[in-house]
């Protein structure tokens, strides 16, 4: 279908054009949302078609576009829709994009959540041109991160993501937006710089005069360019850089601040997409390129993952703000991603990738519902809420489903992901399984407790509820669609697994990852 068409570049280009058009609307600013929606639906449709083609022809590297470049001779990875153009010749920097089973689900998740977040912000009246324009810029950055196969390009997109998010928190955020915006910016920027220095070191150490991810991985794996000490340091630096984004304890403190102050759509994109960038970086860059370093630090990754899972869950119990609770729950759920990766088994890594996809869907619902509560009731403080199901039955139904999905109810998407993470953990570390298992109980506890206090029981009298009404169409449509997908992929998780697995098999069969030759 897309043979000979640079489809990934087109998908990335459409939101860029959309952003420029949106910024330049001038006095027609009130039409910004229509423009932005149009320019985000187009990449969504195209990316779904890409996904369909990927499923239909999963093993044909011939699909896609090879501009003056032979098919990558490196047989380890199997990227499709591959594009390659020279960018900065003398430094070996190229524009290379491509998708495989790990990036494709996240790529589609990006176009999906961007569209839904734009729809969800339909009533944004304050500076709509800038708001919707920045959403599209953000989409460009995240799409680029998930498809770039050159470190320079990857880093460019990685940093591009920061700026729109900084503005979204800083301009449209809550009362402490200044603090939260700058904290988010500095925190994640420092982490990015650790990645940057490591990229430079890997480039020189590899000695192949190329910033291509595949080239450097080849130098590492087949030429043995990276010694053990180098791998250890480089992996540590990358793990820190990507881990801040995930976020892992103890570098998670930017997250609750950013989430609490960000506008709802900002939170959706932050939790749904930006956190995935960290996990994606670990599985795309750090582990395959530096397998020995990863192997040496395996236990550390697992311990940090388990601490993130448990500590994040316990923090949730203590939260009074609904949104802050959801924010902390992200730390806990993203811990499962790290735990899956830490096993270095096919099942664990695939489950980790799947958990990223699942968490993206589920957490979007949760943040949207927090936004609805804030919007209708004027507060998200759990003690002030209560009995809202009487006033907003549809909203409370959606919220209940969202919470149940997030706590891992069988039949919904998170259950499949977390179950498999735990299964792979059992295969690797046996009965240490009891540690992460604890979190399942805590998670059920904080979600159900929050639900009971805010949605059920007698109607609250602490706030004026006379004007509280149910969800608007632009809120219910995105949430319903997400819930539909949560249920579909909960029942048929293998659809996604079939996409992810072949790519993961390639990574787990790399030499050196499990200490083997």
């Amino acid at each position, binding site marked *: 279908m897309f043979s000979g068409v640079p489809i990934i570049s087109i998908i990335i280009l459409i939101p860029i054009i959309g952003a420029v058009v949106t910024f330049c609307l001038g006095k027609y600013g009130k039409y910004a949302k229509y423009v932005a929606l149009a320019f985000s639906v187009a990449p969504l449709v195209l990316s779904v078609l890409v996904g369909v083609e990927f499923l239909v022809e999963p093993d044909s590297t011939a699909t896609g576009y090879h501009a003056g470049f032979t098919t990558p001779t490196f047989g380890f990875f199997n990227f499709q829709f591959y594009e390659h153009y020279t960018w900065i010749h003398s430094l070996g920097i190229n524009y290379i994009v491509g998708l495989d089973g790990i990036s494709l689900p996240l790529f589609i998740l990006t176009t999906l959540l961007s569209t839904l977040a734009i729809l969800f912000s339909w009533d944004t009246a304050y500076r709509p041109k800038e708001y919707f324009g920045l959403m599209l810029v953000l989409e460009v950055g995240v799409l680029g991160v998930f498809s770039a196969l050159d470190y320079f390009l990857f880093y460019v997109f990685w940093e591009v993501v920061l700026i729109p998010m900084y*503005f979204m928190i800083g301009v449209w955020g809550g009362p402490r937006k200044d603090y939260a915006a700058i904290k988010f910016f500095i925190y994640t920027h420092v982490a990015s710089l650790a990645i940057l220095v490591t990229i430079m070191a890997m480039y020189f150490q590899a000695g192949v005069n190329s910033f291509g991810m595949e080239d450097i991985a080849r130098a590492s794996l087949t030429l043995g360019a990276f010694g053990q000490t180098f791998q250890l340091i480089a992996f540590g630096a990358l793990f820190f850089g990507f881990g801040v984004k995930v976020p892992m304890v103890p570098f998670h403190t930017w997250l609750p601040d950013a989430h609490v102050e960000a506008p709802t759509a900002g939170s959706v994109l932050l939790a749904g997409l930006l956190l995935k960038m960290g996990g994606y970086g670990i599985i795309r860059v750090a582990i395959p390129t530096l397998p020995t370093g990863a192997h040496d630090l395996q236990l550390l990754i697992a311990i940090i993952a388990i601490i993130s899972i448990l500590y994040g869950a316990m923090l949730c119990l203590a939260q009074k703000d609904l949104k802050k609770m959801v924010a902390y729950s992200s730390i806990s759920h993203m811990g499962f991603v790290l735990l899956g990766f830490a096993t270095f088994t096919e099942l664990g890594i695939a489950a980790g990738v799947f958990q990223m996809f699942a968490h993206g869907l589920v957490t979007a619902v949760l943040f949207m519902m927090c936004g609805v509560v804030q919007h209708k009731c004027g507060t998200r403080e759990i003690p002030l809420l209560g009995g809202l199901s009487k006033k907003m039955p549809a909203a409370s139904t959606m919220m209940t489903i969202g919470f149940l999905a997030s706590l891992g109810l069988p039949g919904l998407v998170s259950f499949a992901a977390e179950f498999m993470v735990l299964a792979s953990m059992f295969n690797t570390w046996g009965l240490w399984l009891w540690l992460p298992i604890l979190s399942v109980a805590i998670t059920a506890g904080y979600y159900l407790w929050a639900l009971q206090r805010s949605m059920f029981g007698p109607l609250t009298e602490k706030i004026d509820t006379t004007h509280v009404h149910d969800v608007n169409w632009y809120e219910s449509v995105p949430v319903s669609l997400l819930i539909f997908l949560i249920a579909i992929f909960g029942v048929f998780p293998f659809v996604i697994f079939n996409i992810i697995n072949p790519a993961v098999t390639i990574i787990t069969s790399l030499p050196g990852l499990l200490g083997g030759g």
Partner: protein
Amino acid sequence: MAAVWTDLESLIPQLVLIAFALLLPAVDYLVKNKRILSVVALVPLFALAGLVVVWLFFDLWSPTNTMTNLVELNTLSGLFMLVFFSVGIIVVLSSPEFIAKDRNQGEYYSLILLAVTGMTIVAEGNDLFVLFVGLEISGIASFALSGFRKSEKRSTEAATKYFIIGGFSSALTLFAISIVYGVAGTTQISAIANALTGPTGTFTAIPGSETYLLLGVVLFMAGLGFKVAMVPFHMWAPDVYEGAPTPVSGFLAAASKKMGFAAFFKIFLIGIIVTKGNWEVAAGALAILTMTVGNLVAVSQTNIKRMLAYSSVAQAGYILIALPVGTQYAVAGGIFHILTHAFMKSGAFMVVAALGAVAIGERLDDFKGLSRRSPFLAFSMTIFLLSLAGIPPLAGFASKFVLFSSAVYPAVGSGAGPDWLVWLAVAGVLNSALSLYYYARVIKYMYMEKGPTDRIRPTPMISFAIIIALAVVIALGVYPNAVISLCEQAGSLFPLLPGGPV
């Protein structure tokens, strides 16, 4: 006649500039509409910049006889001249509004052209004395420029300070030149290198003279350190940049300083490179100190011009990385960063000048709500500041990428060099993160704070200047390929340095 012409060919820029500089006061006397002056001043700058672009980028024409004993026209001098001409254009375009009510406008433009003349001499200079003459021509014109508003106390104070410090640093430089001459017996830079090193590449001048040479190194560092505002010789920069008329501040930060780097690179990385083992640690420490002090002090500034001044101190620290690393690749990175910094810093100063022209102050508070008053100015300032912070895909990122990576190279892979150099990259990277704080704060004031809502309309000329800078900053960020190759060519003109990774 033909012979005279070819001999003079490498001096065309200087001759053209001086002719126009002499012409301008006469034109001032003749015309009533003073805007014509700026147009007259733009003619040579645009013509020469065009010539350099045609020569470097399009290869349509190139100078034939490019080398004499004293000056040389090559990629290195071409790139530096491009920086000086471009900054000159940007500054001249921004000036008419800013100095509309001042007297002696003819002299103002004349001084700018003379300062550019001095800079081009440094760019081309092949001899310590030529460098010194260039530094002085440009220096004296700059002193007068920063004191252009005679009746304004701040301006006069800035000029006095700048003059005293400048004179002092010139004296140190001259002393250093005399010492090097005493040891090497020549003032021509490549001949110095030959005189100091034998075929073995070790120090082979008169036994015992090495000590004196080191004194020369220290004096050069101090003298040129003043010019580039290297810590601890940076104190003058914020005061002068704050006091001088804003376009002049931009000129000093974006062009004058770069002249200092041209001299730095030529003297340290060609002339006295054999002593590198003696000063590389000191240079590395000074680079880290310069970037850190510049950024730390910038954080607490509430005056934008002072903040930009300290930021340019910090940027000088980044560029200084090229000295201790001392590979051709590092020099390429240094030149590239000089080029990008010239555009982003002059652009930022011109935004301040555009506001100054409509009587808006230069304090952080004055930037409140700027995005509502002038979306164009706020957007441009945002791009310049983000580029200064090194956020991709802007020019500042690309050049920092090359520069910082050059410091990583010796420590890993096949690059032979001391491992500690990698800390220069780490320091640079951490400093970039620190600098983001104060750059982002300005952006925050412009976009997130509420301020006055009356519209500001910058005049076409100043908008044009800002658009030039903006276009270059974005273009060099998105597609730096051609410029990086040129910078690498320029780097390869440092024959005594080890090559880079490519």
